[in-house]
């Protein structure tokens, strides 16, 4: 399958529908002004390991871009002391902040540049998009794991939108209360029976049950066995949310790695704590959001789509 076909397939799944240029771009942008010297652009590129520098006017509006090839030309012509204005490309291919993910991809395919400036309606530069940014956005869409950083606001919208519904009218609710591992899995067993009674297919029920079970085990292992397991199951979609009161996951990236665990030997003797819980959940869920932090509660929301099977 070619890259284009892969992207087409992914597009079909709607994975990138929420991504626009403003959510893909890097906002830590290094720009220069037209009156700066070419030598300054060369220094900036070397120090920041970037291959192109956007040029903005006094109002931060994009007026040009200077690339490595322009620097090389200027070097050959001995024009390093000249102003950026005299060597920059004025006809810049740029993106708007609200451009869709498809527009971004087609830009990369059409123009073969390594980077595109992103501007607001008024022409002000707000970010840059490189192929690395695009790749990061794709990976984030797959894993959708967000911790306490700026990316969080992106998904928190959808997460908190469901919060009220989970509080007031979840289709399934179970209070996890277990002193050891003995009762761990009771909630997931009940959830499974509930989902079967709702007429969901074997495969999606199995995936949701396995993930709920791993999350329930995590509450029992790491959060003193106190938490809740709730689900909203309608319109061919199962959303499972497992919450506890802490102590939280200090490093979510580490906890997503297979084999990484903070569980005790006693837990391991029971067949768990081998660092496969969250990786398993990631494997079997279609979308996954984890919100946690050191000394914070942990919320794990997993979405299972019947039509993906």
């Amino acid at each position, binding site marked *: 399958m070619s890259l284009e076909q892969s992207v087409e397939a992914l597009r079909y799944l709607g994975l990138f529908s929420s991504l626009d240029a403003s959510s893909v771009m890097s906002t830590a942008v290094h720009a220069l002004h037209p009156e700066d010297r070419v030598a300054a652009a060369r220094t900036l590129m070397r120090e920041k390991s970037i291959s192109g520098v956007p040029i903005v006017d006094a109002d931060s509006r994009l007026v040009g871009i200077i690339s490595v090839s322009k620097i090389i030309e200027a070097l050959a012509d001995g024009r390093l002391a000249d102003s950026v204005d005299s060597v920059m490309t004025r006809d810049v291919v740029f993106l708007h902040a609200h451009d869709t993910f498809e527009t971004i991809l087609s830009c990369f395919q059409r123009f073969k540049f390594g980077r595109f400036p992103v501007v607001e309606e008024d022409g002000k530069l707000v970010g840059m998009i490189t192929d690395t940014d695009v790749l990061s956005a794709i990976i984030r869409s797959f894993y959708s794991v967000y911790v306490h950083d700026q990316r969080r606001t992106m998904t928190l919208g959808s997460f908190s939108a469901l919060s009220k519904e989970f509080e007031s009218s979840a289709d399934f609710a179970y209070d996890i209360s277990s002193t050891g*591992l*003995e009762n*761990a*899995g009771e909630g*997931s*067993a009940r959830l*499974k029976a509930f989902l079967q009674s709702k007429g969901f297919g*074997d495969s999606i029920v*199995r*995936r949701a*049950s*396995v993930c709920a*079970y*791993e999350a329930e*085990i995590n509450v029992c292992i790491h959060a003193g066995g106190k938490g809740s397991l709730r689900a909203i199951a309608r319109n061919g979609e199962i959303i499972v949310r497992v919450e506890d009161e802490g102590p939280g996951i200090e490093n979510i990236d580490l906890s997503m790695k297979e084999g990484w665990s903070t569980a005790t030997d006693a837990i391991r003797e*029971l*067949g*768990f704590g*081998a*660092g*496969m*819980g969250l*990786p*398993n959940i990631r*494997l*079997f869920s279609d979308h996954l959001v984890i919100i946690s932090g050191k000394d914070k509660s942990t919320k794990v929301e997993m979405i299972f789509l019947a039509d993906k099977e």
Partner: protein
Amino acid sequence: MKLSEVLEITSATCIVGEQLASIEVNHAFASDLMSDVLAMSRPDTLLITGLTTPQIIRTAHMLDLPAILVARGKDVPQDVVDLARTTGIVLLSTHDIVYVASGKLYVRGLSG
């Protein structure tokens, strides 16, 4: 392979679910690590394990595994037996160790 053949090949006894001996399993998975079992989502599989905790039943239940073969002739606690009964999971017990039970079943055609 029918569960009745599993019983015969490993000289096992049936603790729960004798009436289900005609059920077919097409694969087996041997592990004491339930998360590894959960990572392998294939319903028609026999779980072979040395553990006797309630979690072996829970794990089999979540994955729709029809049966568990407990190795090394360990006593299975009553609460685990009860859980197998309520969840409809066949529970077998053999005196063979996991390695030997797995080997016997493998050579008779039960694949991984």
